[in-house]
């Protein structure tokens, strides 16, 4: 079932890529309106894009949370090197994979200008969906790395071909930065692999073996390899500089999956690999990581505050939110006796934040894409008073923005509350400073709403069209979940707790 969820979109991507040229990209220019094939292809791609979501929901139904990895599917791949194809889920990976599948399904269905190249566009999106879901489900470091790198290649082409502004430059910067990170990751994986006995890439086996006890140059080097690899992807300050240009120049749905799903690969790696496979070394560096997290929180919020470009603003709030996640992880991974409850809370919170941020930022980036197609610019000065013309757009944006700033009753609050509740018990000072971030994001989101939606409506937007039905349905799905997690978090928390509780108590 899990394997099917990974490979159906990838197989569909191959079909889309191999479509004859006439069907692949029939018109050389023109919007989707005069291109019936593009919208037909989008419909087919959307249907395929939903399949992993349905399969993973089925997996959720069969998931019982008894600890350890469930629904494991494995087969040999390169046994001589200890590489296997192994996938499975636990309370951490299942919610993340589900979130990834949902964000992708929404992003694929979302209307976008495919610039006469519908076939390759949907092929890349479906391919990315497959590898992203695959990454969260991998239980083998080799497989994990394969999916990790493939996701980079996919996004590189998405930004480069369908981006705007200085897209080629942004795409290259993105690729060089994140590939540098992934090579650090590769060396670290090799370092860990060479320490196992017998040599294997099997995650469950490595977690059991704990091949690298803390201390020593070797263990520290491996730790930093992993750290850099995940930190670049997450991204946390000072490894974040690839993120704003990549986001700003990417097409809306690509930004949505980049922020919603791909950033989570970094934080997921911190938990799945670093905290699980080198817990003692992680504990040793937990406080510095917490400091970096708080810097990311405050810095990200402050820089976001200074933006006049809507998309840059959202991009920098991602740095800020990933800082929350890292703070939660630092608290959870610290070596501290007697605080297991708080640490489990922080870990659960960090995981919920990964999911909430995926949904919320996914929605915000899609919205910014809709605004761009209608208004042609991301500069917030150019807008104003849209609330009167576009109630649906305004309503959805308000919900997403409030969720992002941590309003109770919405998904972001559940996450941030738990992170800070947990972190305050472990690192009170750090958490205290980090709370500043919440205040600043509240201010900046309110200002953003004010600038774009309130005040007088400029003359040139007097015919501003509101969201179409596809946009309403897709964004609506995200909003329902954002509210749902906020109001009734228990369903999600129960699954995550099956992982977080035992993890910290170990």
């Amino acid at each position: 079932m899990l394997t099917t969820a990974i490979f159906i979109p990838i197989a569909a991507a191959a079909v889309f890529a191999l479509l004859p040229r006439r069907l692949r990209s029939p018109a050389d220019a023109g919007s989707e309106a005069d291109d019936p094939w593009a919208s037909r292809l989008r419909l087919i791609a959307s249907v395929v894009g939903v399949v992993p979501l349905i399969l993973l929901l089925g997996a959720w139904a069969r998931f019982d949370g008894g600890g350890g990895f469930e629904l494991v599917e494995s087969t040999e791949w390169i046994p001589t090197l200890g590489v296997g194809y192994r996938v499975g889920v636990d309370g951490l990976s299942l919610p993340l994979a589900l979130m990834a599948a949902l964000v992708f399904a929404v992003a694929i269905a979302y209307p976008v200008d495919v610039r006469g190249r519908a076939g390759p566009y949907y092929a890349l999106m479906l391919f990315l969906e497959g590898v992203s879901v695959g990454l969260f489900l991998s239980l083998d470091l080799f497989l994990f790395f394969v999916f990790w790198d493939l996701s980079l290649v996919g996004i590189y082409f998405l930004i480069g071909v369908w981006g705007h502004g200085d897209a080629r430059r942004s795409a290259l910067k993105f690729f060089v930065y994140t590939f540098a990170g992934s090579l650090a990751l590769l060396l670290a994986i090799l370092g860990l692999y060479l320490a196992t006995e017998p040599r294997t890439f099997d995650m469950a086996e490595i977690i059991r073996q704990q091949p690298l006890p803390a201390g020593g140059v070797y263990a520290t080097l491996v730790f930093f390899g992993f750290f850099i690899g995940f930190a670049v992807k997450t991204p946390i300050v000072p490894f974040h500089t690839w993120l704003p240009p990549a986001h700003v120049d990417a097409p809306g749905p690509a930004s949505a999956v980049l922020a919603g799903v791909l950033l989570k690969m970094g934080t997921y790696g911190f938990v799945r690999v670093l905290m699980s496979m080198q817990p003692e070394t992680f504990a040793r560096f937990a406080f510095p990581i917490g400091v970096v997290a708080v810097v990311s929180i405050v810095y990200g919020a402050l820089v976001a505050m200074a933006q006049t470009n809507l998309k840059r603003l959202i991009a920098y709030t991602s740095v800020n939110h990933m800082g929350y996640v890292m703070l939660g992880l630092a608290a959870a991974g610290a070596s501290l006796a007697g605080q297991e409850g708080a640490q489990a809370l922080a870990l659960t919170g960090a995981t919920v934040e990964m999911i909430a941020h995926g949904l919320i930022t996914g929605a915000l980036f899609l919205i910014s894409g809709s605004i761009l197609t209608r208004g042609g610019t991301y500069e917030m000065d150019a807008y104003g008073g849209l609330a009167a013309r576009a109630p649906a757009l305004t309503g959805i944006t308000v919900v997403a923005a409030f969720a992002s700033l941590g309003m109770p009753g919405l998904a972001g609050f559940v996450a941030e509350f738990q992170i800070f509740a947990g972190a305050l018990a472990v690192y009170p000072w750090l958490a205290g400073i980090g709370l500043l971030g919440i205040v600043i994001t509240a201010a900046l989101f309110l200002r953003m709403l004010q600038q774009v939606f309130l005040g007088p409506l400029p003359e040139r937007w007097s015919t501003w069209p509101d969201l179409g039905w596809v946009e309403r349905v897709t964004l609506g799905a995200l909003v329902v979940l954002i509210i749902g997690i906020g109001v009734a978090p228990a369903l999600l928390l129960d699954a995550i707790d099956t992982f977080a509780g035992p993890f910290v108590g170990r």
Partner: protein
Amino acid sequence: MLGDVVPELVLVVGGVIVLLYALAAPRRLQGGAAVLAMLTVAIAAAATIPMLDGPEAYTFAETYARDLPAVWAKLIVLVATAAVIALSVPWFRSDPRSGEYYTLLLFSSLGAVLLAGATDLKQFVVSMLLSSATGFVLVAYHRLSRASAEAGIKYYLLGAMTSASMLIGVAYLFGLGGTTTLPGLSTGLAAESGTGLAVAAALVIIAVAFKLGAVPAHAWMPDVAEGAPAPVAAFVTSVPKVGAFLFLARLMLALPLDGLGWRPLVAVIAAATMTLGNLAALWQDDVRRLLGWSSVSQTGYGLLAIVALERSDLALPALLYFLLAYVLANVAAFGVVVQLRGRTDRSAYRGLARARPVLAAILTITMLSFIGVPPLAGFAAKLALFAAAIDAGYVWLAILGAINTVVSIAYYARVLAPMYFKDLEGPVPVLSRSAGIAAVATGAAVVLVGIGAEPFFGAFDGIGLLPG
């Protein structure tokens, strides 16, 4: 004894037959030489495959090894040669005297094969010269083209200098060790140390570096890649490396470790080669020159395996798998250039993805494989090479390799990005079906060998070199 060298004999006899045919056949039938050459390669490969099960031994009085690495090297060389023949047919179709070309190609691949099995210094010299002398002619085959002639001269001059250094070094080693066979030298030199041995070894290593395109004898690589006939460029920048790498490995194993720091020396050469190749490639606007410099940098990665010899059981599997992955990708990359009628200006690749999506995809695959993106063959190769280096205690070299990989993205992207991100300018004529098939087949092999790496790693697991 002769049974041990059937593939080699097939290549010799086949080469002679092709030559006789070329002399006798009228101009319009010169193309038949290619068919005969292809047949020769196929028979040689068929004779090689049973050797995978055969006993590993020295033959001809310890001057030639018939071990599994040599057999695998033979197969890699033969596959690459077959692909190059397919690329050459349309390229040389209008050339009235192309028949002899295939003889040279066969003898050149024979040189690489002999080099891969050489366990004797004289044997080494003969196979080096065979490989070089044929290479010079092949590179300058378009004698009326300035670029081709210039590349040939450059290749020849560097080859002549390094050959001189090889001969002095070989004589020196013989004087020190009292014998020319590697097994004999490994005992004869065991007590040696100091400058004499170091100088002798360095002289020989420089000669091998010429074949590898490694620093300090790398300078011919970009010129040959640019100036030689494109199928020859595919051949000369990849096939001789297979033999040279294996001989270098054998030589290193035969030299005494004490008193001669060859491991750090090779490590420095590896570091310099990959770094220089990458940095130089950054500025190239000529795709063939770029591929030439990239080929230099790839040699640098391959040398990681030599550094790790004996220290890591991954070293030899990493080397063999790297050679396989590299040769396939390199032939495929040049194959795309051939199929595009040798277009080489970077700007001429604009919009290629729309006009020739399959060729663009093959070029993309090869370059991503050079970078080391999974699941392509280049990734598993880099993984094994880095793992071997780390295992051998050369963590800094692995880190340097990773940094170099990041740098390399920049120049590969300079070719890839315009193919996908820019609009097409003008029509894109292509050569012929056989070149296209060769490019697609080798490109597909890069993917298949990457995903299906197990049979290869399984076969390479635990095999050893003689002497070793």
